[in-house]
């Protein structure tokens, strides 16, 4: 009995600290969940479709989840997007056209066709045209499918991903 009364006494002493600690932990968890759902994310990305820019064997990408909601998407940005043909898959492509732009569907073909991108859609294409299933196959993709804008490659080698269009020689010196 003496042991239990001692334990009770100790519990009463640490109660304010324990309550503060629990509240602090809860606040931290909530803040973390909010950041993960709405602000930033890290995702692995495999496949040959973005080859000169990203490795085919996989890169870890750091992306933000608010740029596309605020309309901060430019031609040349790399974005993550839910696949139109499989809602469980995420694809990583480059934005090559915004609403109102006219885009060549496939300039390599002899008979090429231009289409105008309807409002609320974007034209996505992989950097490796030979091994990419993208807007040339799906058509313009609704902006509602966008998940985020890639800001950096974290692993295996860190590099910042700049938005917008750049000259190829500046980004990848030959």
């Amino acid at each position, binding site marked *: 009995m003496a042991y239990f009364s001692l334990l009770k006494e100790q519990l009463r002493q640490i109660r304010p600290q324990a309550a503060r600690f629990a509240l602090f932990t809860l*606040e931290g968890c*909530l*803040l973390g*969940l*909010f950041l993960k*759902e*709405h602000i930033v994310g890290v995702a692995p990305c495999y496949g040959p479709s973005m080859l000169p820019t990203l490795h085919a064997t996989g890169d870890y990408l750091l992306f933000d989840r608010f740029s*596309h*909601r605020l309309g901060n998407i430019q031609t040349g940005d790399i974005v993550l997007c*839910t*696949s*139109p*043909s*499989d*809602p*469980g898959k995420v694809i990583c492509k480059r934005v090559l056209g915004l609403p109102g732009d006219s885009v060549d569907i496939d300039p390599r073909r002899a008979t090429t066709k231009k289409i105008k991108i*309807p*409002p*609320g*859609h974007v034209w996505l294409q992989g950097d490796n045209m030979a091994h990419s299933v993208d807007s040339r196959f799906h058509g313009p993709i*609704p*902006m*509602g*499918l*966008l998940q985020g804008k890639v800001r950096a490659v974290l692993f295996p080698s860190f590099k910042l991903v700049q938005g917008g269009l750049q000259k190829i020689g500046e980004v990848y010196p030959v």
Partner: protein
Amino acid sequence: MAPSPVFWRRALLLTPPAAYLFASLFPFGRVDGRSMQPHLNPNTNQLTRDVVFVNYWKRPTDYQHGDVVNLIAPHNPHLLLTKRIIGLPGDLILPNPSTGSPMHGPSDPPHPIFIPKGHCWVEGDESFHSTDSNQFGPIPLGLVQGQVQYVVWPPANFGPVRSDIPPWKRKRVL
């Protein structure tokens, strides 16, 4: 006594997580417009808006014919629509012949449309006041956010939202 700077810092840091927690615990939304009459917003005066419970935890592959869903409009990523799923991947759908649909010309009879992999065909129950797949065609299932399961307000409407295709539309699903 004025609140301390520590209080303001904490309040600023915790407002977004609190909003996030609130939105996850109470997934309710208001329905605008008359495209889902007579099931949602049955009043013809359009002064009241129904409050519905939306199930955001459903996987995109679990949707069935007749489910009422919340989806991002393909032509505007900031607009949420409430429609009923009429067709799922692999179905053949005859577009509604009475509402002039760009899916078929004005003179030629409507021809069946194949719903490709990962897409669905959505329509409002009130075909004459609805912007739906008859206008924009099959949409990716990735745009579907959740299933509208219950009407919560007004109390006269309270109850589950049944998932079945209206009988006059069934013969258009081939």
